[in-house]
Structures are given as C-alpha cells and as structure tokens.
C-alpha cells in the first residue's frame, strides 16, 4: 500500500470536506461536497471495497449532489449567502473531535496489524444480498418506495 497515495487521498478528502462545510457560497459548497465523496470512494477502493466505492460515487456524486444542486436552484432567491455563521458550532465540533480522538488513542484493543486487502467480489455481495440479507433488502426496498412517495407528496403543489 502506497502510504503517499493514502496521505494524498486523506488530505484531499478533508480539505474538500472543510470547504463543503464552510464555503459561504452555496453552489461551491455543494460542488466541494460532491468532490469530497470521490475522496471517500477512493478510501473504499483502498480498503478493498470496490463495489461500495462505486456505489458511493454513483449515489452521491451522481444522484445526491445533483439533487442538492437542483434544490439550491429551486430555492435560488434564498440561496445568496446572507446568513451568518455560528461559532458555537465550531467549539462543539472541535470538542467532539478531541473527545473522539482521545477515545481512539485510548483504546488499546484495536487490531494493530497492517491491513491486508482482500477484495470482495460483486458475486459475493449479490449472493449475500439474496440469501442472508434478503429480509433487510426487502425492507430497504419498501423504505425507498415510501421515501419516494413521501418526497413526491411533500413537494406537490397544494393548489388544485
């Protein structure tokens, strides 16, 4: 594993994440958000979960980011940044970060051996989805349908 590649991906992802969170211009932030997900997908590739990485790119970069952009366009009148920034959130976020890092460093029982990439095949995933996880899959299907209908109902015009 190329640790240089790892470092690059990590910095790339975090920079775009910060940009997505703090950029005052909505559209830029949304685009940074999409790019950040590419970084995360790269992590997934690195960790031997290629399928998930691809799904991540399809779903987030392809679908969610587009949805967000559409929403920004639809609410354009409000999209100009005249909203302030709350510094209290920064304090809390940093606090949580410190707490998490402290907990991670404190935990001794983490497996320390360097990781061995063992890629998972799509076939394996498909078999598992259709055998062991068939019930959750059904539930997710129902959930997605319900979300679809719910989203439609929410945005439907009230006027007849």
């Amino acid at each position, binding site marked *: 594993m190329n640790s240089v590649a790892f470092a690059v991906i990590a910095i790339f992802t975090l920079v775009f994440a910060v940009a997505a969170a703090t950029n005052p211009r909505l559209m830029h932030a949304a685009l940074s958000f999409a790019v950040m997900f590419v970084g995360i997908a790269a992590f997934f590739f690195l960790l031997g979960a290629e399928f998930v990485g691809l799904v991540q790119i399809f779903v987030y970069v392809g679908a969610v980011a587009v949805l967000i952009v559409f929403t920004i366009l639809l609410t354009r009148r409000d999209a100009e940044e005249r909203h302030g920034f709350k510094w*209290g959130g920064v304090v*809390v976020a940093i*606090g*949580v970060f410190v*707490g*998490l890092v*402290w*907990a991670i460093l404190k935990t001794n029982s983490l497996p320390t051996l360097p990781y061995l990439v063992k890629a998972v095949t799509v076939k394996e995933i498909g078999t598992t989805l259709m055998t062991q996880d068939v019930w959750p899959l059904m539930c997710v299907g129902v959930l997605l349908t319900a979300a679809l209908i719910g989203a439609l109902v929410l945005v439907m015009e009230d006027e007849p």
Partner: protein
Amino acid sequence: MTDWITRNVWLVPATPIVAALLILGFGKHARRAATGVAILGQIAALIVSTCAFVPTLHSHEFRAFENFTWFTFGEQSLRIGFVLDPLAAAMMVMITLVGLCIFVFSLGYMADDKNFSRFFAYLSFFSGAMLGVVVANSLLLLFVFWELVGLASYLLIGFWIERPSAAAAAKKAFITTRIGDMGFFLGILWLYHQSGTLLFYDGGHGCLENVALLGASSTFIALLIFCGAAGKSGQFPLHVWLPDAMEGPTPVSALIHAATMVAAGVFLVARVYPIFSAGAVNGVTSSLIVVVWIGVVTGLMAALIAVAQSDIKRILAYSTVSQLGLMMVSLGVGGVAAGIMHLLAHGFFKALLFLGAGSVIHGLHHEQDIRKMGGLRKLMPVTFATYAVGMLALSGVPFFFSGGWTKEEVLHATSHWPSSHVPYFLLLLGVVLTALYMTRQVMYVFFGSSRAGSDHHAHESPSVMTVPLIILALCAIGLSIFLTPAWPWLESYLLGHEAHIDAHLLLQPMILVSLVLVGAGIGLGFWLYRRAGEVDPLQQKVPAVYRFLENKMWIDEIYEHTILALAAFASRVSDWMDRYIWDGLVRVIGGIGQIFGALTKGADEGVINAGVDETTVGARGVGRAMSRLHSGQIQIYLGVIALGMLALFLFYAWLT
C-alpha cells in the same frame, strides 16, 4: 372442671366480644335483643370468671397457661397464649361484676338514646377487650387487646357523635394514649429482641421467668412499657385525655374509670413487674424510681386540680387520676399487692361514684355543674346514701370501707421505701386533699338548698339504676372484710401466701395518722363549704390559686402551644417542603436546561439580560420549563445531542 377452665379461659374475653358483634349484626332497631345479648354476655363472662376464680383458690401460687402458635412466618413461629393466675382471676371478677352493674344502669340511663343498641355493642366490646388484656399470656396479645381497649374508648367517648366536643375528646384520648403506646410498642420490640419470646410464662422459658437475661436493657424496656401504662392510666404528663373523656355518656366514664381502661395501665405494670424489678438492689431499681415519682406527681397534681373543678364528673375524673398515681406509687415502692388491691377496691367505689353522678345528672336533666345543685339529699335518698358510701371509701375512711384499708396498705408500703421518704409525706397531703374535694362535692350536691332552681324537677332514678348502685355500695363495704390487716386474705391470695388471722394488727399507729388526716380533710371541707353559694369559698379567699387550679394548671394550654404547635409546624414544613423543595428540585433541573438554552441563544444575540430574565421567570413549572427547552431551533437540539456525547466521553474518562 379445673382443667377445662384453665384451657378455656379465652372464653372470658370472647363472650362479650361475640355479644358485641351479634348486636352490631342485629342492626339499629333491635333494642330489646341488643340489651338482652349484652347483659347475657356479661353474665356469662361473670360466670366463667367465677369458675376460673375457683381453682385459683385451691392452691397457692396457682398459675395455669395455655400457649399456642398464632402463625408461622418463614421457619419461625409466633406463639401467644392465655394465663390464669390470682392477678388475672381477681381482675376478671372485678371487671365483669362492675361491668354488669354498669350495663344494667345503662338500661335506664341510655333509655332515650336513638343509638341505644350501638351503645351496648361498644360497651360489650370494651369489657371484652379489657378482659383480654387481663388474661393475655403474651405481651403481644396483651398489646392487641390493649389497642382494642383504646379503640373501644375512642368509640364510646365520641359516642354522642353529633357533639364536636365529644369527637374532639375521643380524638384526644386516642392520640394521647397512642403516644404512650408507641413507647410501649418499642418496649415490646426490644423485649422480643432481647429475650426471643413475648410469652410471659412458658414453663420456664417465658420472658418474665428469665428476666436476668435482659441485663441492663431491662431498665429501658421497663420504662418504655411504662410509657404505655402512663398513657392508658392517665399518668402525668399523658393524663390530659382523662378529664376530657367525660364527654362520653356517664356509664362509659364509669367503665373507663373504674373497671377497664385506666386499670389496664396499672395492671400492665403489675403483670410485667419482674421486668421492672429485675436487678433490684433492696427492692429499688431506676425504672421503679421513675414509676414512683411519676405516680407522686400525678397523684398530688390531680388532687389539687380536683379541688377547684365544678363539673361533677370532672372532679371524679381528677380523683381517678390521683388514685391511679397512688396505685403507681404503690407498685413502684414494691407494694404490688397493695396497688392491685387498691385498684380492685377503687374499681367498685369509683364505678359507684360515677353511676351515682350519672343518677344525679339523669335526675337533673343533664345538669353537671355542682354549683347549680344542692339539697338533693332529700329528693334522691338512695343515690345520696350510696354516693356517701362511695365518697367515704374514696376519702379513705378506714374500718368499714374498702378504700380505707387499701389506702392504708399503700401508705404502709410507701413509708418503708428505702429510697426516699418524700413520696410518703406527699401522699399524706394527697389523702387530706382527697377527703377535702370529696366533701366539697357532696356538700354542694346533696346538702344545703337548691341553688339555681334546676332541681325543681329532680327525681329519684328508676330502680334499674338504683339497684346497681346498691350492689356496688355493698361491694365497696363488703370487700373490706377481705382487706383488714387482721385477716389480709386478698393480699395473701394475690401474693400466694396463706392468710392468717391476727387481730392485733387491726389497730396500728399508722392507721391513727390517716384517720386524723382524713378527718381533717372532711372537717375542713365541711367547714369551708357549709354555706357555699354559687361562688366557691376558695375562689373568694385565694382567687389566683383557684384560677390556676380551675384551669388545670394550664397543662392543656401548654401542650397546645408547645407540642401540638410543634407538630403542626412540622406538618406545615413537610407539606411546604413537598410543594416547594422537592417539587422545586424538578423545576430547577428544568431550569438548568433552560439556562443552557438561554445562554446559547444569548451568546448568539448578545443579549444576556434576556437570558437572566428568562431564568427568573422560568421557575414557574415543570411543564413550562420543559417547554422552554424547546426553542424550536433545530441546531440547538443537535448541539445538545453533541454535548451529550461529549459528556459521555467525560464520563467514560472518569470511569477508566
């Protein structure tokens, strides 16, 4: 026969109690059946008691007990039982005999009452409960009946339920005696803990048979038990309920003061006397010293107060308190037999006096103020004659009246007390006072001329009321045969000795002392009250003292402003704490959340003032405070969640 009665001595208390339940079952309108059942029950109890009395005569130190298991808890069992010994037998006969007289008297006295049958049910229950106290062979069983006696007195004192004063007096009696009972209860627990049994006699294993095991704790146990006795027997400082108990119908007062309730306390001390005297040096223990002094204070104080009372029943009530003090002194100085003898004799003549007073009240259409009476000697001759017998017995005129002999015994025992001679001299003062206030009462009621004209319609009571008076008067006189020092049969019987006849003992120097004192008391009374008008002669001469005594030394008022006020205050505080502090805690927790919310908001808007305002306003209610937490700002909700996570981290850090 002997066997049968010793095994079935429980029948004595059971009969009146069953009668009471039957009467309650009959309902309100079965007046004839009610009286029939009540009196039959009492007669049956009298017969059974007499049967039980017989075997105790046969042998000395006769004691038969019948123990059984009441219930088993876990692997342990609680045993109770009944005992028959001279103490119990003598008390049973006295209670049932006096009770029967009172029952018959009540037929006439209560004839017009609309709750006639309920009255007889309560009376039967009262007498049954008291008989239960007497025959109990377990301190627990004794306590059970003891509380039932308290219940019955509560019901009977408050019998005229529509009178607020009666209800208040009943409440006072119940609560005051219960204060003592709580001490008694603790004493029972302590005794049970120390000795492992509550049975008095159990073939060598009973708690009274092994008092040495109690060790030093016997003093405390005895004093705690004495709390109960003081409550029931009206000893200072728990005597306040007894005069108020006069609110009940007069037969009830007679029963309470003569046969049942107040006798229970003295009886209790006599019953557990081994605990009091455990580890005695020269017949004196610390617990007995307390008993003596409480008795002396009670006796003297009540006698003083009685001199300045004007209600015919209240005078008798205070005389009871005073006599009970005397009995306690006697028990305390070691004269157990003397104390019990006085209790028995007192039972007869005090019942006689109360019933006589009842007859007077009945004749005068419920007039109770002695200053408005007078000259009844001629109008109510039978009542007068019997009342005079009672009065002479109470005053302690020796030779012919039982009270004189027993009082003599008590004084005799007190004079030999090694600890101090002060009680003896104070008791002698009490003797003078007793004679004085009884003479005063008789002078007011029966002599002189009518004062307020209320006796115009005075009439002698019907024979259903006078016959019990006569019987009781005969008993009060006749009992003295068994009491003379020349042939102290009753004392020997109670102590388990053989009685010897020794005529030389009839006249002793001490009897002359008391004769002089009683004479002085009666003479003083006669002289003071020979022409008494509506205003008491004492009141004219020493108004301040009279006022002090007339108001019962303001003990009621003192209690009202100290103990009662304190209890009421504690109650208010508890309620207040509940409403404001404990409930307030909840609000404060709500408020803290609110401060958090306000601060976050304040930091954002830079308006600290508003936050403070919000906080002060916010202490208004849980709901309100909680709802204020809902600022509607979803980001604050989210932030609070994040902070909660942080708090969990801190908690985790603290744990590891």
